[in-house]
């Protein structure tokens, strides 16, 4: 892969990291956390809804 192509990928990564204001190397970890937290929240909401339905 050419230097230019690799450089372009670096820029994409940097742009993405800037959105969350994190270092590029930390981006995967932060995204995984987000996904996990979203999942947890959704489960929680789901549970709450079920509880309210049953009561």
């Amino acid at each position, binding site marked *: 892969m050419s*230097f230019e192509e690799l*450089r372009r990928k670096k820029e994409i990564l940097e742009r993405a990291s800037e959105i969350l204001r994190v270092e590029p*190397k930390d981006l995967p970890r932060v995204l995984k956390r987000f996904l996990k937290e979203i999942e947890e929240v959704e489960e929680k909401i789901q549970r709450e809804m079920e509880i309210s339905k049953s009561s």
Partner: protein
Amino acid sequence: MISKEILMKGFQKNPEKFWKVSLFDELGFERKRCKNCGKFFWSLSEEEICGDSSCRSYEFIGSKIKDLTFLETWKEIEKFFVGKNHHPLKRYPVICRWFPLYFTVAGIVNFCRLVDDRLDFEFPTNPSILAQPCLRFNDLPNTGLNSKSYSCFFMVQQTSLFDGKEGYWKDECINLDFELLTKVFGIDKEKIFFIEDVWLGPNAFGPSLEFHSQGLELGNAVFTQFEISNSSYGELDKKVIDMGAGLERFCWIVRGSLTSYDAVFENIIKKIGAPEIDDDLKKYFKLCGRINIDENKDLDSALRSIAGQINADLRKLKQKLEKLQAFYSVLDHSRALLFALADGGIPSNVAGGYNLRVILRRALNFLKKAKIELSLSDLIFMHSKDLKEFLPEMDEGRIEEILKIEESRYLQSKERSKRIVESYLKEGRIPSEEELIKLYDSNGITPEEFKEAGLDIEIPPNFYSKIVERHMREKEKKEEFLFDISNLKPTKLLFYEDPNILKFKAKVVKVFQNFVVLDQTAFYPTSGGQLCDKGFIDGIKVLDVKKVGNVVIHQLEKPLEEGKVVECEVDKERREILKRHHSATHVINYCARKVLGKHVWQYGSEKDVDKARLDITHFEKLEEWEEREIERLANEIVEKDLEVKIEFLERGEAERKYGFYIYQGGPAKEKILRIVSIGEEHEACGGLHCNSTKEIGPILILKSKRIADGIVRIEFCSGDVALNYLKESEKILEEVSKILNCKEEDVPNAVKKLFERWKKKMKEVKKLSR
């Protein structure tokens, strides 16, 4: 310890030997002691008062000798000296790159160089003459008030190096200066006074003769005759004539105008309109030579004495002077800014840039106070039109840009200052002098702002001198080592003899705990921002290498025995990376100058193995396109496979060949310079480099940021380090795109969406928990 007082006393035991020149004998000058100030002087006049401004009023005001403009005055002087076999020299930059000073403060600074830490003079030709614009910021409070002080003045510099054969000495110097005063400028010889003085430099001294006329010091001929070495002194083999005269003062005395500013800035004053000057002020300006705020400290008492003498109301006089000082000072400050900015200076809060910001902000305030309906840049470019021949390569666009940015920064800071000043007003608190200095240093609040806001404060008379002096001299960082190495021979530096030597044998000549000195070494010590080599000595890990004086010291993991012959090996991989990063630093510096402008100068650098950084002088943070363009140009140079040339040149020759740009790393302390050239980039540099630019490999700018006002840091890496960095980024991007289940180019969008979704969910969960 030699002091000026001791020298004066010593020389005065035999004044004929040190000060009497042949002219005094030929024309019958007599030596007298001034009845007013007590100084000794030589003159043809029978008067017993010397010609200094503290002893006389400006007696020449109102009597015009010639109608010369500022530039024409210089042309007359130059013509005279060239006719007397002096080589005319072009001016040097006002930003001093070759000697550890921020600014060229005198004409002689042009020829000052360091050899180790001693002052040495190097003259490109002999004898020579030039008009050197000089910047001095320690006389700001007097500017506009005493008619002779400027922050930017032109020093007429007459120089001769005398070794008994070439050049000339005291007699000829004073003959020439006397002829200039009397024949060229028609000053009456009876009105010329030579006052005895001495000059004491860091490692040289000598007598000097100041020449004064009618209350104005026109010049000072310094005869650098003796050198000081190891607390004893002796006569120099090559003595130096260093005559510096104020061009502004010559122009003033021949025109006999009310103030020197009226003579020097005549053209501009004609265009913008002269200020109103009533009889009181006319009388004041004849006597104002005695105003010297630094010495008098108390401006009020000096003004009171003048007001008494001219029968003027002190309060009214002060009011009128305030406006007039603003008018004359802004004319002076704008000229200082013109030269500073044209020569690559940048107003900031670091180093010499600090002083430039002080005068820029003063100038903006004065412009308002003097009610001049022009912008600062208008005024600056009016000067540049008058002084075109001193400014051949001026970048007007860049100057305008810097001024615009600085002005808006000043307005912003003024808003901030207003709030701080108001808090003082509310509490009825008066800031102390120390507080005022602190407020100026950290918030840019001038004491005038407190006064204008209605707080009853006395502005310390030498306030600006005090803050400016704090920032005036470069602090020399000296490498300190705890152990005594003074008896050790210089270490033989194998990396200069052959940079390919990585394995070598050496004898341990000295051991201090874990620190080892070898008779020779191929380990490059940390220097010029390049971090040191590492490796092994006798199988022991090398942790650090530094150079103290001429001795290289290796810090090891364990001690070694003295006298042992040891096998040494330099870590090749580390060395290669450091070399690439060093060559890349030169390339980036060159490209930054190409893209951003000639004001870009290396402020600092560090070449490590994971990345390198170059700190440059620049007034704004870099735009993305600027960063990209610097990188693109740098990689173009890499691709061109230019040879990295190393040559050894005598310092003067190197300066003539490549200019002062070679001093990117600061002033050199050697007479022979090692010049590293990459294409058009030439730097005095002791570092290790690649043989050609292709060896540097691809250059990748990692990021840039403004680390201080006026300083931008560029971080980059090259070669395999750059490729590894990019591959690592590629891996992360791949991982991220998998996590987000999208294409790589869609990652930023997907991150944004996920972030929004996460924020929404977090809000929902908050509601639930309520």
